[in-house]
């Protein structure tokens, strides 16, 4: 892999590029879906992708290909170099300074060398068991969108013309199921999943299936509630979506474009004192961990919000320069070059049992699913469709649906009155249960 990257960078220089970097991904993936106990789909995938960024003086351009033949790669380089001639120069463009590059590649235990040795039949069996556990959990589980097992093994390599070259491998395994519960002619779908970097750490298929069934069953009989302003409790997965909105608003490109509701808020209180948000790319075996960022800088642990105070933005080299700051080592590669991305992003756990958080609410909403895109990143205005349970006198009383929750993200973060102690890294972004003091719930 590094040989190919070396050739690409060499040709870029020969064609007149003053600097260049290139990123390469190769992977093999497998997935199996079983539905109602029978094999539905089995998928084998083999993919490769090379992306290149070139600089011609202060002008930049990017190109990518999945065709690694010599002629195609040469054409890719030539096209990138000629594209860089039509883009406008930007004084701040360019590779990071050589002295900030990662010197050592930390061992983050992201690969599972023995985990991929299951046969397709064994993988199908895991998916089947997962779905079967959901189907068998209750007679009201009457249908299913299936049980899924997937695994993927990938290698990533990065090289830059100022001398950096390194590669690493990752594994991932996932198991999920989406059962459908029905009662009185009404159906409800929900699901549960687990994703890990080590197969041995996957939750058992039975556990995932049972949880999925419980989630679908508790939605049966859901109704609308009357429009009201009430406290809203976000379950961990939904609270994590709020954390993602903060990460989007503190990403360099949102800030230098003036497209962020957190613009100019560095050093200021943007949330209740119970809120601490961290991005940590160094967690061993973490789903979002990586040994270096998309520009070869070492990953770090970054405190974004410390007890409610905004303490760091998320920056790559370019957006850092635009804001007169150093990169926070959050460069990520996308097809068009470099952007800002998070690693393992989480809201630090609090002291409260989630039951007590719910118990503290007299009348309110416990949110378990959010749909739609009603978030304005510039103003922080927030309005999304919600599904959950109505809280009556501190107890989860009955399921609700066809409602929205609305507010403004800045107001919502200031209004966080409680943070649970139930932080689990189930995904790249994680959060414990969170209680927001007041939002508008719109219904009938």
């Amino acid at each position, binding site marked *: 892999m590094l040989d190919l990257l070396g050739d690409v960078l060499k040709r870029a220089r020969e064609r007149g590029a003053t600097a260049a970097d290139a990123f390469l991904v190769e992977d093999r993936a497998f997935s199996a879906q079983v539905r109602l106990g029978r094999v539905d789909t089995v998928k084998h995938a*083999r993919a490769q992708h090379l992306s290149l960024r070139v600089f011609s003086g202060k002008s930049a351009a990017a190109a990518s290909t999945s*065709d690694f033949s010599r002629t*195609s790669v040469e054409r890719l380089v030539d096209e*990138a170099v000629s594209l860089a001639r039509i883009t*406008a120069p930007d004084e701040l463009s360019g590779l990071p300074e050589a002295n900030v590059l990662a010197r050592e590649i930390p061992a983050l235990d992201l690969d599972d060398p023995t985990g991929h040795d299951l046969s397709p039949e064994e993988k199908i069996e895991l998916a089947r068991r997962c779905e079967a556990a959901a189907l068998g959990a209750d007679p009201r589980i009457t249908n299913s969108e299936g049980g899924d097992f997937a695994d993927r093994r990938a290698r990533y390599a990065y090289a830059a013309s100022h001398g950096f070259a390194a590669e690493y491998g990752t594994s991932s395994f996932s198991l999920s199921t989406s059962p459908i519960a029905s009662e009185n002619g009404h159906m409800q779908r929900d699901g549960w999943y687990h994703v890990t970097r080590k197969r041995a750490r996957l939750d058992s298929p039975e556990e995932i299936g049972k949880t999925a069934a419980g989630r679908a069953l508790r939605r049966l009989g859901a109704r609308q509630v009357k429009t009201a302003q009430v406290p809203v409790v976000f379950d961990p997965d939904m609270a994590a979506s709020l954390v993602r909105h903060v990460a989007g608003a503190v990403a360099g490109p949102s800030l230098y474009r003036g497209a962020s509701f957190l613009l100019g808020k560095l050093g200021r209180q943007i949330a209740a004192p119970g809120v601490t948000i961290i991005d940590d790319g160094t967690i061993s075996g973490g789903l979002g961990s990586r040994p270096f960022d998309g520009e070869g800088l070492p990953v770090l642990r970054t405190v974004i919000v410390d007890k409610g105070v905004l303490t760091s933005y998320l920056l790559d080299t370019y957006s850092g320069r635009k804001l007169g700051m150093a990169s926070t080592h959050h460069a990520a590669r996308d097809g068009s070059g470099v952007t800002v991305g998070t690693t393992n992003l989480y809201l630090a756990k609090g002291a409260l049992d989630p039951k007590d958080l719910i118990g503290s609410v007299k009348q309110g909403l416990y949110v378990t699913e959010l749909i739609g*895109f*009603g978030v304005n990143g510039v*103003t922080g205005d927030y*309005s999304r469709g919600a599904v959950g349970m109505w809280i009556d006198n501190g107890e989860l009383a009955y399921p609700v649906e066809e409602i929205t*929750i609305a507010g403004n993200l800045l107001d919502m973060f200031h209004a966080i009155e409680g943070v649970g102690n139930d932080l689990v890294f189930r995904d790249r972004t994680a959060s414990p249960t969170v209680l927001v003091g007041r939002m508008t719930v719109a219904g009938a």
Partner: protein
Amino acid sequence: MTTNKLARPERFFEDRFGLTSSALERLLGSHLVGRVDHADLFLEYRVSEELTLEEGAVKKASRHVSQGAGIRAQSGERTGYAHTDDLALPNLEEAARQARAIADQSSGSMAVAVRSGRPHDLYTLAEPPVNAALDRKVALLLKMDAAARASDPRVKQVIASLGSEDVVVLIATPSGWTVGDVRPLTRLNVTVIVEENGKREIGNYGGGGRVPFDFFLEADRGEADRWRRYTSEAVRQATIKLHAVEAPAGEMTVVLGPGWPGILLHEAVGHGLEGDFNRKQTSAFSGRMGQKVASDLVTVIDVGTIANRRGSLNVDDEGIPTRRNVLIEKGVLVGYMQDRLNARLMGGEPTGNGRRESYAHQPMPRMTNTFMLAGQDDPDDIIRSVPHGLYAVNFGGGQVDITNGKFVFSASEAYLIEDGKITRPVKGATLIGSGPEALTRVSRVGHDLKLDEGVGTCGKDGQSVPVGVGLPTIRIDGITVGGTQV
């Protein structure tokens, strides 16, 4: 890549990768024929380009090439699918073996003889947009930046982007049947950030289709050039929002403007009428064929055959020519959208809706251009008929839970209607309703059917495909508006 070669997908894959029709036939024949209910090979070559302007200059430009093959074998309800980026014959043979392994014996169900028909010719272009000269594209983006800034001093930031692609596909089956398509697509988008007294807002607008680059330079229905209209729309939307009041919360009468608000149909009924969900009985519309699911005023169709539209296709991704499918006729559910697998299993015929994001994805029933037919009412009369409600004219995205039928779509430009008059602009808000019920509450349908500008992208199971929507002005007597004002 020359236009000439692109016009002949069969020759393209032969010339570039040595994949002759006899080689493909051998590949599919030796591995797949006779053992499965259906098998196919999907070859794809995609070139795309993206130019982005910000801070008054085009500083980002990128060009991408992706290629690959997807091989599929189906037996009964089972599908084996394998894809690879490497089009060398031994790799394709391995993929064919993998695809077949799971579907190794035929279910015995009769493979439906599909009348494939001739592909349409909806978007042959003299010059595909991806091939248009870069300096002309850069000049257009710069003009948009200048026009936006000149139109209003409150414009602080302009981000304009032009994306273009050209996709060559070839679909082959073991019987030796092949069909190809060359699909140009382009989209021009502009985002502005405006600021007034320390308050900032954002406005977005754009358009496109399977059209040449010059499309953006042309006047539209006697109005301004398209690029100029997109730019002034983005500025107008952003500045209106600066003075928007809190949106109302709760159930009320809503009037939807024509065009893009057709996303309502896409979410409320479109997804629920895709064949896969109905075969699996997981849709809120399952088993409701022939039943009343909308008011008499409502006829909804999905049409893949409109020339140069973003959601149109000459053939779908299984080689079936697209067509006009009536989904709801005068309020009655009359049709589903099908791909080959679900049509075979439900005993129907494929409707030209078998689509996939790329060779790395297997086809599913998907929408093309989905819209409601025009009614009789004057749009102004519809607004005048509402004592108190919301008039929503522009939307962001939407989403639906197929199983319980609940859907959302988020208004980005909306106004209060008070005593039959449009009054104050309100902040963005999500609207939520129930698919099988929402359209039964449609009480007025305007005569002003409009299709959207050509910017829609639909996501399903992690696959994105370009789509179109359309709507005349309609009145819905009761849907929940997710504002903050109680």
